[in-house]
């Protein structure tokens, strides 16, 4: 999978997840997932939507340990590429 395409799709999910004014405010830092200022419940919902978007299921979705490591859309792209390569 193309990394830039993955990041673009993740950014679209993030934009949809946030209020418009939040998107505007965070325009240059949307790739910093940990910097979005969302709470833990909102974070797991965001991750769930990303997993759904890329067809990740219970057996190849992100582990709890991987969630702790996610800080940016690049980190998400790494995990998705690894999961897809493992299929």
């Amino acid at each position: 999978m193309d990394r830039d395409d993955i990041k673009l799709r993740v950014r679209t999910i993030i934009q949809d997840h946030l209020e418009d004014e939040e998107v505007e405010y965070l325009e240059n830092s949307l790739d910093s997932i940990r910097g979005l200022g969302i709470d833990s419940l909102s974070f797991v919902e965001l991750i769930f939507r990303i997993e759904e978007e890329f067809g990740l299921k219970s057996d190849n979705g992100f582990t709890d340990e991987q969630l702790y490591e996610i800080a940016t859309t690049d980190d998400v792209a790494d995990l998705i590429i690894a999961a897809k390569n493992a299929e």
Partner: protein
Amino acid sequence: MSTANRVVITGLGVASPVGNDIETFWKNSEAGVSGIRTIERFDTTPFGCVVAGQVTGLEESPYYRKKYKNIDPCSAMALVAANQALSQAGIEMENSGKSRFGTYVGTGIGGVFTHEATCMKYFERQDDPRISPLAIVQVMNNSSACEIAMRYGFSGESLTVSTACAAGLQAMGEAVWAIRSGRSDLVVAGGTDAPISRPLYSAWHCMRVLSSWDGEPGAASRPFSEDRSGLVLAEGAAFVVLESERHADERGAEVIGYVDGFASNTTHAHMTRPSMEHEVEVMSGALEDAGITTESVDFIHAHGTGTQANDVIETNAIKGLFGERAIDIPVSSGKSMIGHTLGASGMFAMISSLLTLKHGVATPTINLENPDPKCDLNYVPNRSQRLTRSRYAIANAFGFGGTNATAVVSVA
């Protein structure tokens, strides 16, 4: 009750089949506009009933936020209505704790829409039976109260009442007690329900109470009519901001009206059959709580569901309590226009009652060309009527499970 703890109303808000703001809601209610439309969300062929009171254009409301699409429609409508009411009352969204501000919500079935959608998704995807991590907090009945309290930083009492069609009005009544007792200074209170779903329609259909109307949708809901067609379900939310008179005075809030009295009781004999005796008792209790007699009531917003069981018994209850004066009091059912919003319905009745007193105009019961001979009061048939006096109004809500609630309101 000390004057300081008299309960005043400082904000109103609705998300309804006839408008998502108070001005539109009132304009359409006064004009007898129906919000009942053909259901297009799912195939209604198996259910006989093809109509419902449906909220449209919620996303265009200035009180709607993008994030609301990720929560149950029951909570989304509650937020839009509560945001309006709190905005009118001059309460800002902020996260600082307001320890004496409460959130009281009534809902008959809560996040049932999410529950059903989640179950369907779960069983359709046996290979990956995962569902949204937000499902639990969307389904729980206190989700709407929590969503409101979080956004406004209300850290006082939060209470969710689930007493079917009496839920919203009963939640409001509990808020009245909280303010009178001095436990709370301000409460946002209301009702919300979103019951337009396929499985629920099936259950209501099998109960044999849904409207069988197959003509023009707006004519389907026919309370007190001999050719009534049954219950028309609807979705919606209606909220008010209540506070102690002293608190409103201190912060310079504009007072719209008062909740003068409230009472609640239980028809213990049957799960769904109403009781004239208990309806008389609950209306009488609310008047007593308000410290007034039947002589001071100038408008009654009936529960008025358009079912045989309700219409006749409620009529007889009003006659039983008000005696000869019953025929002189306009009695209206807003359900003829918006349908039955279940847990929100009592709050729609209360807000309509308040607006009726404010404008001096009784909203009509539409589709009442052929009154049921057993229903012989002035139901304000088809066209609004000017009130001769605007002292007190009462709003009724009678729920499955036997809970009855009545509120007495007046305007400032």
